[in-house]
């Protein structure tokens, strides 16, 4: 007789039921608890094989800038000429803590330059003392893990034609006495087309590098690694993207209809620089071309909507990349763009 009335999560009741039925010896009990995911030490997580592949998704892309010293590509930037030292949101991985880090801008930027960003050097860090040894609270990810999955699906799903007739549409046609020349079909949301992820490795995205990696890996895990193409870039993808060996190559558009996710600040963090207009013009051009190829474009931007470049808003869905982003807000943003 089935007693469970609904599709409930596994609970202690399942363990009791299993123990009642199987009468296991004590050494078997922990195994059963683990299979039921009730052992707190054996919570089901992404298996090692998948974790390894997730890392590959990221390592497949250009070498990530080291957190202690990030510099822009050498041909457009002279390291010695500009240095910005910041007390960053990035934390050193272990106990050492940043004492006091002055912020200074030590150079005047010329037209093509980006600043070199240097975190506090090791000499300015002090080892944690015993009393400071308590675990530091982890930084919350920009997207809420509980809604991350549905948010990603909402961002990358496309509509595909399936072979199931749309009965409502058909009924409507019959009622209106229309001649049915073509059977209307139901369009299901799907992620099977894959996705291209443009991952900004520019200096302005350094504080968000960990989150960006996490988001790219989550997209790959959800959409399927083999149909997810992660292309890192600095400043502008159409100038060049990085290949798996860290070399540069020309950007290639995805096949028609494949959605594109852009994780970038679109140069917003460099507003103090003399001129960001040329980059913006290139973005406008890229988004228009993607739209012409029927690729939907979703941009995850870590800055507030009032800073988003207006020129781009008619060609892409902009999502404020923070805890408020959810499936609902992304769908609403997509619907707003469709209405334009």
């Amino acid at each position, binding site marked *: 007789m089935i007693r469970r009335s609904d599709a409930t999560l596994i609970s202690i009741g399942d363990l009791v039921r299993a123990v009642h*039925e199987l009468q296991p010896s004590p050494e078997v009990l922990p195994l059963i608890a683990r299979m039921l995911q009730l052992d707190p030490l054996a919570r089901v997580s992404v298996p090692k094989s998948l974790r390894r592949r997730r890392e590959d998704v990221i390592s497949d892309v250009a070498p990530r800038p080291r957190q202690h010293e990030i510099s822009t590509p050498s041909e457009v930037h002279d390291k010695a000429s500009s240095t910005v030292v910041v007390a960053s949101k990035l934390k050193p991985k272990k106990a050492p803590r940043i004492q006091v880090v002055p912020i200074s801008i030590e150079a005047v930027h010329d037209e093509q330059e980006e600043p070199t960003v240097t975190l506090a050097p090791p000499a300015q860090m002090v080892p944690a003392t015993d009393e400071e040894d308590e675990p530091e609270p982890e930084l919350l990810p920009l997207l809420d893990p509980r809604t991350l999955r549905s948010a990603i699906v909402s961002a990358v799903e496309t509509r595909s034609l399936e072979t199931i007739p749309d009965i409502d549409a058909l009924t409507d046609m019959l009622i209106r006495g229309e001649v049915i020349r073509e059977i209307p079909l139901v369009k299901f949301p799907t992620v099977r087309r894959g996705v291209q992820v443009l991952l900004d490795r520019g200096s302005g995205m350094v504080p968000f590098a960990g989150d960006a990696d996490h988001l790219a890996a989550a997209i790959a895990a959800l959409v399927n*690694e083999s149909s997810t193409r992660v292309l890192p870039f600095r400043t502008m993808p159409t100038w060049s993207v990085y290949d798996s060996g860290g070399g540069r190559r020309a950007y290639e558009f995805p096949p028609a209809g494949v959605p594109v996710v852009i994780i970038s600040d679109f140069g917003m963090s460099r507003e103090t620089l003399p001129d960001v207009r040329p980059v913006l013009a290139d973005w406008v051009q890229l988004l228009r071309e993607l739209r012409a190829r029927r690729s939907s474009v979703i941009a995850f931007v870590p800055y507030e909507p009032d800073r988003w470049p207006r020129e781009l808003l008619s060609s892409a869905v902009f999502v404020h990349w923070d805890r408020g982003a959810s499936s609902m807000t992304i769908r609403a943003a997509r619907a707003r763009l469709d209405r334009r």
Partner: protein
Amino acid sequence: MNYNKQFNAAGEPKAVLPPEDPATGRSPGDQDDGTVYIYTEELELAVNVALATGRPLLLRGPSGAGKSSLAKNVAYILGWRYYHTVISSRTQAQDLLWRFDNVLRLSEALDAGKNVAPDAAYIQPGVLWWAFDPASAKRRGSDNPTVPALPDPTLLSPDAARAVVLIDEIDKADPDVPNNLLVPLGSFMFHVPELRVTVKTVTRPLIVITTNDERELPNAFIRRCVVTTLPRPTAKKLFEIAVRHFGPDRYSLYEPIAAILEQVAVAKERRNQHAPSTAEYLDAIAACMELGIVPGTSVEWEAVVSALFNKPRTGDDPTK
């Protein structure tokens, strides 16, 4: 391991094979290899836990670890009916419950000379309907005698009260599909609105679900399953599998082939590539037996190893 086993992997199989197909001379139950399976104690326990709790059994592990062949062997040993479905990127959750042939119905509705059959005649029950209530599935959920009955697609033990269902490669489905299966898999019931019928079972089936983890499954789905991971079989286990498949007379083949597979597998895993599977190991033995090839350094042996164990990946340059 000491516990009361409802499922005993070493027990005498109770399966009844369906009648042979006159065209092929084979029973549908023979089509897949499900009669031989080497269990670990942990896997046998996982099956028993799934049976005791009524939860789906979610099997993880690399390709070739034996995930897909487990379900049929469990049905074979328990003497239960067996249904399977392989998920594709186009599969929707409802396909596992039922499908309504709208095109046929519409076509008949538009054909003035033809009477439209009752709605039930356009219903195609899915594997879960067959597993939950085969009598209702045969009648397509209707008591109307004009609705043509369907044959039971079970591959084993057609008269058994309970069933094993394999839902293979669920990670291939779109992300919403597992979530849409939560209620039917949790409550063993679902509603068919076209017929205003609720399909439910009183004899819980065992649902076995496999994933290669190519796409992450929703936590809500995983948290409703008994989860176990099948590791890639070791050389020793491969050897055991070969003995069960081909008998004990070919030791001289089993060991060297298992050893070379192990080497290739370790090297491939280091490069994060798919290791050759049990099926390829058995193929290699069968090829060597059939062609009289002896493992060693011959050109023929190298060709077998290359063809079965060192398959190029899509996109690899075949000349390199």
